[in-house]
């Protein structure tokens, strides 16, 4: 705390001069705090020896190494970064304008470029890696990321546009998945029939959840949605006669190419089109299906934002009481936001079930909700491009971490980078909070304009109160 007080002390000092006494004091407190923290955490280690006794081992060199690193980092911050930051804060307004300019530039070339890239991506991967290596890149990266992009865009409607904090979004994903799995297995309906059906079912559940929680705002709403997510998961786990409980549902019918199955038989896709059979055909097909679904989500959201209902969502996020004073039925507006978000979650869920061929309650834990919410927050609430980038970074990052074998050479063979995934996510979130508190893209695009479309700086845009 002393360090913090010291930091605030510097802020008041005139810029440009280095205050030696202050820095010495700060370094002293930094040393004390880091010794206090690292001594019990790193300085001592309990080891079980051969005779199974617990012994205490000291690691002073490592501890002092860490303390030294912290102090040096702190000095670097005080001597180099902070003076520079102080100099910059004067030009914060200019920076805001620059950010808006960057965003406008982004919108101009980034979106078409990204669209083109995702369309040719499977072919690109195929060309580079050949048939063997491509499955991993298309399936683990392409499809996985696109599912989360779609989920992020769906949740973005609820959280980013309408400003309703939903911690149980995975419930709708689960409803979509189980709707597809059960209906496809029981009645043998095709993927293309069940896709809209699962979306509608999820939307129905979204409205069902919406009704009781409409009166709640902020933290209370978040808790109830969290509970709803858990209820769905627990029902799915315990209703064994229908959902097969923990064991999950396997053998879910896979999507066909408009009736032509992807298998090695004579009626299969490869035989019909005169190709050599490879499981890659289905993977590529699935990739384009999820790409199409994600694009539909994006297109619908973009259109909705420019319609009265989308504007009402954003107005609701800004000020609910003002909305009511303008004759907007806030109940219906919230319900439509819940239903739309849930519907896209349901689409993604039914795609997920069709792609995996197997689902179990473990795929729908709170962790999933948290990841999707993290994507929306990291991306910048309300921003489509930001959410897509955040999904690519977070989900792609997880997948890449599986491949970081060279880290084993540094940290030893026991080191499994995927175990540190959450730690790294947490770290990334903290960094984003510091540098971009409004997410990657923190500006808002107006839905209508008279003279010129100007992006609105995040400083004005409200985050919603639930």
């Amino acid at each position: 705390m002393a360090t913090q007080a010291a930091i605030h002390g510097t802020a008041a000092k005139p810029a440009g001069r280095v205050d030696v006494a202050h820095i010495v004091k700060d370094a002293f407190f930094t040393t004390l705090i880091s010794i206090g923290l690292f001594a019990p955490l790193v300085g001592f280690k309990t080891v079980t020896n051969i005779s199974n006794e617990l012994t205490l081992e000291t690691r002073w060199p490592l501890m002092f190494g860490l303390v030294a690193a912290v102090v040096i980092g702190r000095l670097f911050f005080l001597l180099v970064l902070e003076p520079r930051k102080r100099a910059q804060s004067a030009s914060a307004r200019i920076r805001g304008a620059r950010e808006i300019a960057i965003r406008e530039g982004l919108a101009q070339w980034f979106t078409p470029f990204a669209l083109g890239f995702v369309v040719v991506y499977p072919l690109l991967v195929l060309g580079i890696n050949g048939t063997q290596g491509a499955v991993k890149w298309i399936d683990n990266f392409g499809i996985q990321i696109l599912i989360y992009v779609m989920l992020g865009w769906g949740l973005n409607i609820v959280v980013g546009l309408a400003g309703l904090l939903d911690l149980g979004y995975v419930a709708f994903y689960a409803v979509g998945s189980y709707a597809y799995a059960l209906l496809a297995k029981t009645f043998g309906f095709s993927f293309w029939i069940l896709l809209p059906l699962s979306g509608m079912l999820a939307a129905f559940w979204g409205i069902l959840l919406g009704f009781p929680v409409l009166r709640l705002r902020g933290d209370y709403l978040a808790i109830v949605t969290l509970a709803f997510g858990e209820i769905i998961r627990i029902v799915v786990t315990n209703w064994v006669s229908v959902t097969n409980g923990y064991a999950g549902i396997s053998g879910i019918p896979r999507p066909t190419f408009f009736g032509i199955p992807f298998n090695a038989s004579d009626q299969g896709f490869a035989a019909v089109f005169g190709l050599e059979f490879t499981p890659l055909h289905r993977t590529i097909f699935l990739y384009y299906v999820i790409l199409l679904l994600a694009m539909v989500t994006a297109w619908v959201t973009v259109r909705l934002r420019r319609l009265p209902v989308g504007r009402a969502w954003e107005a609701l996020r800004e000020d609910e009481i003002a909305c009511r004073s303008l004759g907007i039925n806030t109940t219906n507006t919230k319900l439509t936001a819940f239903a739309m978000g849930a519907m896209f979650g349901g689409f993604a869920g039914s795609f997920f079930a069709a792609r995996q061929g197997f689902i179990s309650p473990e795929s729908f834990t709170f962790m999933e909700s948290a990841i999707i919410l993290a994507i929306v927050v990291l991306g910048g609430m309300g921003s489509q491009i930001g959410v897509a980038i955040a999904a690519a970074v977070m989900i792609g990052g997880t997948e890449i971490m599986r491949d970081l074998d060279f880290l084993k050479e540094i940290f030893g063979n026991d080191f499994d980078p995927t175990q540190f995934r959450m730690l790294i996510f947490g770290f990334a979130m903290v960094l984003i909070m510091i540098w971009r508190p409004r997410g990657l893209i923190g500006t808002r695009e107006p839905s209508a304009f008279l003279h010129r479309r100007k992006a609105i700086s995040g400083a004005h845009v409200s985050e919603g109160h639930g």
Partner: protein
Amino acid sequence: MSNARGAPILQVEHLTMRFGGLVAVNDLSFTASSGEITALIGPNGAGKTTVFNCITGFYKPTEGRIALRHGGDGIWEELPALTDSSRRSIKRGDDALFLLERLPDFLVTQKARVARTFQNIRLFQGMTVLENLLIAQHNPLMLASGFTFLGLLGLPVYRSAEAEAIERARFWLEKIRLIDRADDPAGDLPYGDQRRLEIARAMCTSPVLLCLDEPAAGLNPRESAELNVLLNSIRQDFPVSILLIEHDMSVVMEISDHIVVLDYGTKISDGSPEEIRNDQRVIAAYLGVEDEDVEKVEAEVGL
């Protein structure tokens, strides 16, 4: 159809609002007349905003009746029948009568067409000036977009409706002289402009009754004078009556046709600006009186 100026448009009768043991408004009755500006004044904490919240549906009054008419004056005959029924409104041709205390807040604006502004400005700060005015036209636009479904397909019906809405917004932006700032976030506007924008936004809902909660609060004398001009022109050019809460006497005395004075939730005076200006009870409530006069004034006020 007698829609003459001066016929009552809003009747508040025996309005009482209690919050637990606190009586915020006590047996208040007054009428607002068509095409006029009625001011509601009183010292701080007199219950003026509570009255507004009751009229606009944000509070459900503990007791009392708040009736609003659309169209001709003759519809008032229906008031006893409407009160006895469990209905919220009654329609007779183009005329209609609403019991505002029975309507939820958004229907007070949507159906009864009562618009309001807030004491602490409630604009959508992160949305542009134009968007603020478009949101006020939500209900007609929602209808034109076929409750989103037709709008999603991009049908021309919706596009022309939106163009019309933008035209109306443009009209108001020109009227409040904010046309050049149409694409700026509302939160970026200076305070006085935000006040005017909030009034324009309320007008975009096509109200028959416009309730303004301290529109001159925080304005400098020049801005107050501009506000007077704006309110007078609204009254002249639009079929709207205005109900006004205000502390700024230069605004109240100059533009109101009729003033109702509240103190401690009770009406202490009701009349033309000239009458109010000379009313001893009002002067006592606002300025206090000499010590020796306290008993006399208390007897007059009925304490």
